[in-house]
C-alpha cells in the first residue's frame, strides 16, 4: 500500500497541469471582484470561504447589481448544484473515513480536484477504499488547487487596484461567461436552454430584487428538459416516416 506521503505528493503533482488554466482565472476573478465594488478583504474571503470559481464570478456580478443577499445565496446554490453529482460519485471512496476527513475533503471538492481524483480512483478501483491511502491523494490534489486559487486571487486583487475604471474591466465578466457558455452548447436542448434563459433575463432585467436571473435560469432549465424529452419522439417519427 502506498504511504500517505507518496499518495499526497502524487495527488499534488497530478493537479499541477490543471493549475495552468486555474491561475489566470483566479487573477481575473480578483480583478473583477474589485471592479464589482467588493473590498480586497471580501474578494479574498470569497475565494477561501466559498472556494467555487463559477459561483464567485456570478456572486461578484450580483453584488455589482446590488442584489439582496438571499437571492445571491439562492443563486449560488443553483450554480453549485452540479457538485451534488461529484459528492455522490466520491462518496463510496470516503465511506470508511471519519467525519473530520469527510468535511475536509468536501470543502476541497471542486470541479478541478474532482476531475483528477475520480480518474485516480477509477484507475485503482481494484483495491477496497479502506485498504488504501487514496484520501491522501485527494487531499494533495485539493490543497494544490486551493493554494493556487488563493494565491492567484491575491495577485488579481493586487493588480486590480492598479487599473483605472475607464478600462471597463467589468466587461471581462461577461466575456468570461461567453467563453464558458460556448462549450456547453453541445446540442439542440442546451442551445434552447441558453436562448430561453437569456431572453427571459433580458425581459425580466427590471424586476425587483434581481429575481430575473433566478427566474430566467429556471425557465432555461425547464425549456432544456422539454426539448430533450421531445427529441427521442421526433427522431422516432422521422424514422417511421422514412
Amino acid at each position: 500500500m502506498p504511504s500517505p506521503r507518496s499518495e499526497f505528493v502524487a495527488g499534488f503533482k497530478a493537479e499541477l497541469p490543471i493549475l495552468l488554466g486555474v491561475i489566470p482565472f483566479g487573477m481575473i476573478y480578483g480583478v473583477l471582484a474589485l471592479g464589482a465594488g467588493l473590498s480586497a478583504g471580501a474578494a479574498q474571503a470569497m475565494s477561501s470561504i466559498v472556494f467555487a470559481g463559477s459561483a464567485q464570478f456570478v456572486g461578484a456580478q450580483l453584488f455589482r447589481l446590488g442584489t439582496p443577499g438571499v437571492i445571491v445565496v439562492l443563486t449560488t446554490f443553483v450554480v453549485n448544484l452540479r457538485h451534488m453529482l461529484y459528492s455522490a460519485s466520491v462518496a463510496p471512496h470516503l465511506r470508511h473515513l471519519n467525519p473530520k476527513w469527510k468535511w475536509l475533503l468536501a470543502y476541497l471538492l471542486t470541479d478541478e480536484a474532482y476531475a483528477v481524483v475520480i480518474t485516480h480512483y477509477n484507475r485503482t478501483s481494484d483495491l477496497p477504499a479502506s485498504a488504501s491511502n487514496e484520501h491522501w491523494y485527494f487531499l494533495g490534489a485539493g490543497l494544490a488547487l486551493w493554494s493556487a486559487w488563493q494565491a492567484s486571487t491575491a495577485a488579481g486583487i493586487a493588480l486590480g487596484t492598479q487599473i483605472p475604471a475607464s478600462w471597463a474591466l467589468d466587461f471581462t465578466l461577461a466575456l468570461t461567461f461567453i467563453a464558458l457558455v460556448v462549450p456547453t452548447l453541445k446540442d439542440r436542448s442546451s442551445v434552447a436552454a441558453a436562448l430561453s434563459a437569456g431572453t427571459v433575463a433580458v425581459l425580466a432585467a427590471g424586476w425587483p430584487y434581481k429575481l430575473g436571473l433566478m427566474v430566467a435560469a429556471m425557465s432555461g432549465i425547464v425549456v432544456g428538459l422539454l426539448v430533450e424529452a421531445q427529441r427521442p419522439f421526433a427522431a422516432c417519427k422521422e424514422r417511421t416516416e422514412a
Partner: protein
Amino acid sequence: MTVWPVILGMGVATFAIRLSLIVLLGRVDVPPLVQRALRFVPPAVLSAIILPELLRPGGTLDLSLGNARLLAGLLAGVVGWRTKNVLLTIAVGMAALWVLSVM
C-alpha cells in the same frame, strides 16, 4: 448592505452541497429528473447573465450598431466557439470594446 453574511451564506450553501451525498450516501438518491436538469444549469445561468450585459448595457434595451458591448460580445462568442480558448476570448472581446468605444 454588508457583504460578509452573504459571503458566509454562499460558503455554507456550497459546502452543504459538496458534503451532502458524502454523508447521506445509501440513504437518499438523486432523482433522475434532477440529474438530467443539472446539465442545463451552466448554459441557462451563464446566458441569463450574458444577454442583459450585452443587450442592456446602459440599463435600457439597445439593439443598435452603436452598442459596443453587443458587437464586442458577438465577436468574443465567435472567437470562443472557434478556439475554445478562454483567455483569447477575453482578450479579443476587451480589445474590440476599446477600439469600438474610441470610434
